[in-house]
């Protein structure tokens, strides 16, 4: 049985005059025990999707189930069995770490002791601050506490809406390590993120943009789907290089990627020599041009362009 099924879900906002389509005929399935990522920028429809699955919003069309329960009819069942961490920090800032955890445990008819095993590895990291008010914690620790609170009743499916947004790189990495451990315990996890590089940590990902799913695949296969040969280019003047490459007649796309620009050429046109010749004519210095493997962001941008 699938832990989550989403079948032709449509969600719109606004009045008749100005309709905003947040989710446009979305379908996918998440297997039991899978770590599934919804990858896309703000405004892609991630939060609407999460709210529909956690029974907080009603979709205009389509059906969805969580744990076999219908999100509309069986909402009470779903509320008993899922864990949810909303995008915005949603704990009581004026309650201490311990008080928050105890509160959420009791609300879900359980106690901290009962499921302590599940949160132990995460909780020990914030335990030294258990008397501290949640509002006084750093971003990384708040996020750990929120995760503990969402896990305390041993949910079968865990919904994490942008848990790493606004969090620094170190805390983000730690967070993903925690998710991998949770996955080992058999919990199905649906997680959304705007950071493309985090897709690599998931079993499968759905790339979402403007309410549409552009691709659903394993991270490895997503990059394999990249069409064309990708070149990494750099020179002494990166900004001029980018503008010049964009002007090159055989350029399909050129995007900056850290210390390189990723260049995709129109099929079978020019090749490496052509590019080098073009750049030399424009007197670029220290040119480096080599093959590179596309990453998820490359594929995402390609898909964005094609739709």
């Amino acid at each position: 049985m699938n832990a989550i099924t989403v079948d032709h879900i449509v969600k719109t906002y606004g009045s008749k005059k100005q309709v905003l389509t947040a989710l446009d005929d979305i379908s996918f399935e998440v297997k039991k025990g899978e770590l599934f990522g919804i990858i896309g920028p703000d405004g892609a429809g991630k939060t609407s999707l999460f709210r529909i699955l956690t029974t907080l919003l009603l979709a205009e069309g389509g059906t969805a189930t969580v744990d076999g329960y219908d999100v509309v009819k069986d909402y009470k069942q779903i509320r008993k069995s899922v864990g949810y961490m909303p995008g915005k920090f949603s704990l009581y800032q004026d309650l201490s770490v311990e008080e928050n955890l105890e509160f959420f445990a009791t609300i879900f008819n359980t106690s901290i002791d009962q499921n302590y095993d599940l949160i132990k590895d995460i909780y020990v990291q914030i335990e030294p601050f258990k008397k501290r008010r949640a509002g006084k914690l750093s971003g990384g620790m708040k996020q750990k506490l929120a995760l503990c609170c969402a896990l305390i009743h041993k949910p079968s499916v865990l919904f994490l809406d942008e848990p790493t947004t606004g969090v620094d790189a170190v805390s983000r990495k730690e967070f993903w390590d925690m998710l991998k451990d949770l996955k080992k315990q058999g919990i199905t996890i649906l997680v959304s993120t705007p950071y493309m590089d985090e897709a690599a940590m998931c079993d499968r990902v759905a790339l979402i943009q403007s309410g549409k799913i552009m691709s659903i695949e394993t991270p490895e296969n997503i990059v394999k789907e990249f069409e064309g040969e990708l070149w990494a280019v750099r020179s002494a003047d990166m900004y001029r290089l980018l503008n010049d490459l964009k002007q090159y007649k055989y350029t399909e796309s050129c995007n900056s990627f850290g210390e390189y620009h990723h260049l995709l050429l129109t099929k079978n046109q020019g090749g490496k020599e052509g590019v080098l010749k073009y750049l030399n004519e424009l007197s670029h210095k220290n040119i480096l041009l080599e093959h590179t493997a596309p990453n998820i962001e490359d594929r995402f941008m390609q898909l964005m362009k094609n739709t």
Partner: protein
Amino acid sequence: MKQFLIFVKKEFYHIFRDRKSLLIIFLMPIMQIILFGFALTNEIKNSNIAVLDNSKDESTAAIIQRLDASRYFKVYQNLQSPSDIEKAFKTGNVRMVVVFQPGFRESLLHTHAAQVQLIADGSDPNTATTITNYAGSIISDYQKELYGQFEIPYTIKPEIRMLYNPQLKGTYNFVPGVMAMILILIAAMMTSVAIVREKEINTMEVILVSPLKPLLFIVSKAIPYIFLSLVNVVTILLVSYFVLDVPINGNLFLLMAESLLFIITAVSLGLMISTFTKTQQEAQMFSLMALLLPTLLLGGFMFPIESMPLPLQIVSNIVPSKWYFLIVKDVMIKGLGFSQVWKESLVLLGMSLFLLTISLKKFKIRLS
């Protein structure tokens, strides 16, 4: 049960950790009652008056003496002729002039109709009405004493309020009024704000995606504020009894029970407000506009309802504070028992049930 207890506990944490609000909750009643009791009462003390006694007999001397002896008036000036009256007002030193017609006592004894004119400065109608009322009642007291059983047609009617407020103390009216106002503010506004805050800080999202039942949520939100409001009732009663010398003539237990009933009505109002407001600011504004103003204007303690136009009189019936004000006046000041206030109590009970049902029905189990 455990869910309920931890929720209530959490609410108390919120309340006690927000020092500023806590201070307001507990100090506001005391401040208000003292403000209203001392500064804003419509009671007038030691007003200067002038007397033009054209009769100069035993009765006029006695009345003048009584006026002067009362705490409301001080005879500041004796006038000699009618032309002095205007001069006296123009100096601004006197607020009222008492004019006795010639042969005052004669007329009183023989024709049963003696004339006394009370002239007040109509530019301040409130004060003018009040002081002429006071003077009128002092004069009629004198007549009654003089005649025993005899009722004499008299031009100035004593105020009805004096029946239960023999010393004409304005404060008495304000205590029930302030109680109604404070309870509406604390109970209704605080409850609505507390619920809406959960929406604003996003905790509502997590609470909704939990097995917690809406009724449990609503009740646990209300309990702490019911408790706090009861504390306020006690504070107000203590301050008014010990500081303002307002007696508690009726049954204290009945008074507390009626207050609890009114608090529940107020909390239900707060719950209802929370179902259609999205931000704390909205909830606050709405509570102020929809609850505080009607309480002040139509509750009956600032402006007598009987003298309002009929439509307003009808509208005042849906203001819970009006009923509570009547109950407190009856129980606390008049010393009446439950048999006299059961109708008003029933109205409040009905209102609470109605509001609670609506809030529960309107409680959103989803985000929109």
